[in-house]
């Protein structure tokens, strides 16, 4: 029988109250959003916070997907299910639907949240790569106000983010522009499993050229974005050669490990192929004006 270790339970009914509790209870307190990462970690004793602050009551306030000021804005408590069902996301950033279709299973998606996934920062987690690939910025709120950080600054490495002790993520913002397209490609051993390797890509097309590319790999020990690969595409016309070059650079800068999901060599191969596929599909969508 797996049960979480003991903790003191608090329930926050407002963002302000959650922040006050975090400040008062100190570094051994954690926010509980959908619970589908934190509770399994606690059952395995990989996490043992002394206090849990349940923010389930914030699900309505922080559960939304909307377009505002040229950006997509996604509330931190938006559940995977809502991300998958969102017509707006499907139209403007199809990468989310690509990824959500293959994140866990429909029942898990009814509870898990985007904020929880990003803050967990699991190295094989899909939404961190999705958000990095589309150049998302993350809104972090503290008692003294909020700051907005880009994904490379937010995601510091496995299980580590820029969120400070008395802070919480409230929103994710994705810049929109004409000629934007995005896609996600993932290989898993069985439906609903973590990725063997996955790649997210976005492109902004301008006059037939790739004005800006975003590339992010998951589960292969890559940086949160593949900056060298992105730079290699800027200003080029989309072509199989350009995509292959970007994929080669992305793979060069990742460091997968041998494990039960495959050998490092196999994962590199898959990551490269998925990068090419994601770029192809993102470009096709951009030319159809996803954005």
């Amino acid at each position, binding site marked *: 029988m*797996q049960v979480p270790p003991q903790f003191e*339970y608090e*329930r926050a009914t407002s963002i302000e109250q959650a922040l006050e509790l975090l400040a008062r209870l100190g570094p051994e307190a954690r926010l509980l959003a959908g*619970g589908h990462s934190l509770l399994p970690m606690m059952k395995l004793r990989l996490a043992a916070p002394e206090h849990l602050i349940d923010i389930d009551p914030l699900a309505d306030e922080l559960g939304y997907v909307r377009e505002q000021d040229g950006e997509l804005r996604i509330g931190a408590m938006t559940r995977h299910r809502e991300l998958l069902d969102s017509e707006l996301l499907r139209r403007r950033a199809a990468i989310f639907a690509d990824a959500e279709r293959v994140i*866990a299973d429909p029942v898990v998606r009814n*509870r898990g949240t985007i904020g929880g996934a990003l803050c967990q920062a699991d190295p094989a987690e899909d939404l961190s790569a999705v958000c990095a690939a589309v150049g998302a910025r993350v809104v972090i709120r503290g008692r003294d106000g909020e700051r907005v950080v880009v994904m490379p600054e937010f995601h510091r490495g496995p299980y580590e983010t820029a969120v400070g002790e008395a802070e919480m993520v409230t929103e994710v913002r994705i810049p929109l522009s004409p000629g934007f397209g995005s896609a996600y490609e993932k290989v898993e051993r069985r439906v*609903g499993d973590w990725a063997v390797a996955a790649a997210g890509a976005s492109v902004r097309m301008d006059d037939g050229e790739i004005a800006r590319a975003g590339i992010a790999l998951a589960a292969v020990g890559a940086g949160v974005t593949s900056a060298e690969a992105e730079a290699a595409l800027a200003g080029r016309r989309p072509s199989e050669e350009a995509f292959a070059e970007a994929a080669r650079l992305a793979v060069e800068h990742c460091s997968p490990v041998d494990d039960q999901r495959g050998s490092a060599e196999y994962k590199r191969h898959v990551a490269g192929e998925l990068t090419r596929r994601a770029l192809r599909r993102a470009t096709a969508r951009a030319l159809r004006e996803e954005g």
Partner: protein
Amino acid sequence: MQVTVSVNGEERAREIEPRLLLVHFLRDVLGLTGTHWGCDTSNCGTCVVLMDGRPVKSCTVLAASAAGHEITTVEGLERDGVLDPVQQGFHEEHGLQCGFCTPGMMLTARALLDENPNPSEAEIREAISGQICRCTGYATIVRSIRWAAEHPAAAGAAAETAGEAAP
């Protein structure tokens, strides 16, 4: 801590440990053992209950988090002695073998049909893809859910079945 959870339309207040999981609250505290307890790792889905009408894995929800939500367990499917069409469907199409996954499967089916009264086979398979039938009896589970879709009125369905069975 004190928690009040609405289960099958009834407010249930109990003193619990904060770390108590919803599945154990239902089974051990309330005695509603229709909700099964399986893998404990949010993989197998035998512990599925409805939370505000949506299927969730109750091994990965704190009982404390269920406060303020409406929980429906398999015990809540039957109404006034009349089986839910989903239950009737599992009976008609032999949707169970060992029965371990059945409560979770039926609740997910109920939620699916509430949103999509006429799901395709592919939609049914997608809906139950987070739940494992240890007997691999998926074909009959899918047929059972289709039966329920085709017989949306439980009472009528039961009467019709009785009529068919009569010589």
